[in-house]
């Protein structure tokens, strides 16, 4: 069972705000899911290479050319707050 402290720790790592009720609910649900995936520990994986790219591609290279994206203004228009062509954010501290 995930403790409230662990739920809070994960939520902080994930930058997710949670209220008290949610911490309890997610703690319970995540514990159940983690119990379920626990079965993976039983599988013998000695000498097995982990797989990340399923069709076996490696080092796909391309010519490193700069291409100007024409929609710069459109991108900035999507931001909640901008200033003079920059994203504007809240103070860090």
């Amino acid at each position: 069972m995930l403790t409230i402290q662990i739920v809070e720790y994960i939520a902080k790592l994930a930058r997710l705000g949670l209220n008290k009720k949610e911490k309890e609910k997610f703690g319970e649900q995540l514990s159940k899911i983690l119990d379920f995936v626990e079965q993976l520990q039983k599988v013998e994986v000695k000498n097995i290479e982990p797989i990340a790219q399923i069709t076996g591609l490696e080092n796909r290279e391309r010519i490193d050319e700069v291409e100007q994206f024409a929609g710069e203004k459109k991108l900035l228009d999507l931001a909640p707050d901008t200033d003079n062509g920059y994203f504007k954010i809240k103070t860090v501290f």
Partner: protein
Amino acid sequence: MLNKLTIKQAHQGLIDKKFSSLELTEDCLSEIKKRNKKINAFISIDSDLALEKAKEADKKIGQGVEIGVLEGIPLAIKDNILIEGIKTTAGSKILENYIAPYDATVIKKLKNAGAIFLGKTNMDEFAMGSSTENSYFGPTKNPRDLERVPGGSSGGSAAAVAANFCLGALGSDTGGSIRQPASFCGIVGFKPTYGCVSRYGLMAMASSLDQIGPLTKNVEDAEILFHEIKGRDGKDSTSIELNSKLEIKNKFKVQGIKIGIPKEYFIKGMDKEVEETLKKAIKKFENLGAKIEKVSLPHTDYALACYYIIMPSEVSSNLARYDGIKYGYSAKEKIKDLLDVYLRSREKGFGDEARRRIMLGTYSLSSGYYEAYYLQAQKIRALIKKDFVQVFNKVDCLIAPTSPTIAFKIGEKIDDPLKMYLSDIFTISANLAGLPAISLPCGLVNNLPAGLQIIGNQFEDEKVLAIADIYERSE
């Protein structure tokens, strides 16, 4: 009633000048107007743009220009695929007002082919779900029974095709999100080999598993859409060029091919009547001259657990981009500093399932757990792939149910995430192994459709489509 046609039929009608693209598009829009309120297949509809494009197609036809098979054909697009200038929400509050700044590669290709976009279809938030109940814009209903789910996460696309709101649709499939809703709605849904279709402009959920594919009224239409959207793309480094061997297809016969029946897919928990429809489908293949062989995929039992480590890990990384700063919902109240912007925007912007998966992934990837969870799952993924490689040395394709049940009731599984996850038990292996797989209707259970799944070897998409096509035509 033109909206009931298949893509191929409509194309024939357009070149024979039996009707115009405008009439075809108007029929789709009027059906949407009549029934979408109840079904809720669309998040947004753009009638004006669709009608304008239809007129353009008609002008071309009028001038005697030779047209492609998708010219003037009205389609629906899942709302996690970007169409420039159109609202694209991924079913999430966090992107409620997001206007796509560019076209996805598949959209560019469909635009070049002259296809018409009627609107964007409803989906589980960021494609996370098996019922389309996890949408910020309300659940989609199954057109065949409004009390039931259409499946998910491409439930809006599946419902739109089944309700004849459009002639075909695009969806995305990470663990079954094209095939399972196709099965629940009684239509065809195809997930190509991983990488055959560019993911550029598809909102990333789990990048090593995500794949765009068609949802259509029959196999022939799925093939038409697939051929239009596939191909290597410089903007997606995982994309590949499939060497299309269409000439094989025309001569392709089911007679003499070997079909494997994986014993692990016929297990307890499967609906008895669904199993019966599958057995009938297998019998039909036998009658067509196929050799049926029992095979084993020993690591099947671990696929679901493996998926629920790998997928959320990738989700937690991909969804980190929604930070309330670059785009999307940004919390304004009780904000002191930058950290508050992240915490509150993501708290209010994401629904429960998205937050569950982000946390699950964050946990699996966090220091001290990475090896036990993520690395272990990647090794098991290798074993699952190996199972398939060995089986495809012996057989041409595999047959399995798409889902263990028919469409379930709305609300039935929403409070129990694990129970919901089990809906994908027969579809996720194809994603983990990067295989092409199609779902097509194979009978009714209590008047609701059951789905037959045909799984092929990597890069043998054409063979899967050819086998499905022969099955369908021999009804």
